């Protein structure tokens, strides 16, 4: 019996980013907006490990994106866009700390492990017992919502979120077209979002 080995891709490191970057290089500012929208949380989370204050972290994130925009002409796609952006953000955060005479962390946050850490745990305004309670509740509700999903939606979402598989690999496993995978993953997210929406509205 043949064993099929699936290579687990790194999430978000993709050619669609490259397509967006090329559009920015051609002068499409709107494409850069999409990159900001896509990566703002990751960047703020990353900077939050260096700069504790949320408002300051936002300033540094803003500066990082502006630096990235100004330097995007030099981006040749030799590395993933986020890797490049990550380096800019870390350097900007370190420079910020130096300029404020604060000592930057001795070692960088590892890119692969960066998301393992709590991206916002160091930001003071959410590190409260109440926030922790809400977080636990939210997690519980999300897991509950996923369990309530139809089988094909749940499988598609978990293969993506937990196993980090590409749409193509998921389509091979689920024996369905890639378009169906896209649709299933979105519908799963939409259903989970609808379930947790009341929690978010109450000022989570």
């Amino acid at each position, binding site marked *: 019996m043949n064993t099929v080995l699936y290579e687990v891709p790194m999430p978000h490191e993709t050619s669609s980013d490259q397509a967006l970057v090329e*559009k920015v290089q051609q*002068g*499409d500012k709107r494409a*850069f907006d999409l990159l900001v929208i896509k990566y703002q949380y990751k960047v703020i989370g990353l900077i939050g490990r260096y700069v504790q204050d*949320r408002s300051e972290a936002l300033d540094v994130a803003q500066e990082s994106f502006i630096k990235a925009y100004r330097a995007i002409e030099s981006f040749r796609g030799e590395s993933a866009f986020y890797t490049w952006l990550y380096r800019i953000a870390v350097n900007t955060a370190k420079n910020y700390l130096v300029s404020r005479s604060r000592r930057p962390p001795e070692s960088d946050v590892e890119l692969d492990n960066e998301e393992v850490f709590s991206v916002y745990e160091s930001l003071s305004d959410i590190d409260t017992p109440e926030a922790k309670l809400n*977080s636990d509740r939210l997690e519980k509700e999300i897991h509950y919502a996923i369990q309530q999903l139809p089988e094909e939606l749940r499988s598609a979402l978990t293969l993506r979120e937990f196993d980090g598989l590409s749409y193509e690999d998921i389509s091979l496993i689920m024996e369905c077209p890639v378009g169906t995978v896209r649709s299933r993953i979105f519908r799963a997210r939409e259903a989970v979002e609808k379930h947790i929406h009341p929690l978010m509205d109450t000022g989570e």
Partner: protein
Amino acid sequence: MAALNENASEMLTSLSAMFDGEASELDIERLLHADSAELSRQLEHFHLIQQTLHKDSTVTLGLEDSLLLRVRAELDKDDELQAEEPVISLEKNVLPFVSPKKASPSRPNWRVMLSGVAVAASVSFVIILGGNGLLTSDTVHTNAVAEVRTPTSNMIVTPLAELDKEVLQADNIRLQHYLRQHAEQAAMTVGQGMIPMARVVSYPVKE
């Protein structure tokens, strides 16, 4: 109304694909025309779900497009500053200064390229002008020589065989003496003899 919902659903499917890094060209085109605030809000929820699933604490909600608006405002300010830069006429051979920091992708390379062409054109112009100046004196000189030489076509050239041998020999001896004196003088003053460099030419004399 149904079409509107369908469009919104398509847009969100594209957003979900972009979130996963699986957006196609069509997805990107669709998202480029969507409302930023709405996209940002939706992505915030996707992030929230993902990070909660990864036990990654929670995303602070309410960020939406505030960071995007700040970034955009700053970049627009850059563009305005660039637009306010004085436009200098290239016809006067003055190069426009383009700050590398402010060279934004929204203003593609045409300025830089144009200034590059202007530099090349200016250098070429200077070289041609300078070259012409240098060449002119040579040319005038050449013409002068040519003018001097022109009458030679009317000169009567006496064949060597018809010259008086004694006169010719005397001239030759005088020339050899003169050249020797000159070489000795040069060797004394410069310290480098002229002889090795000199080619003494003498008319062949038939015995």
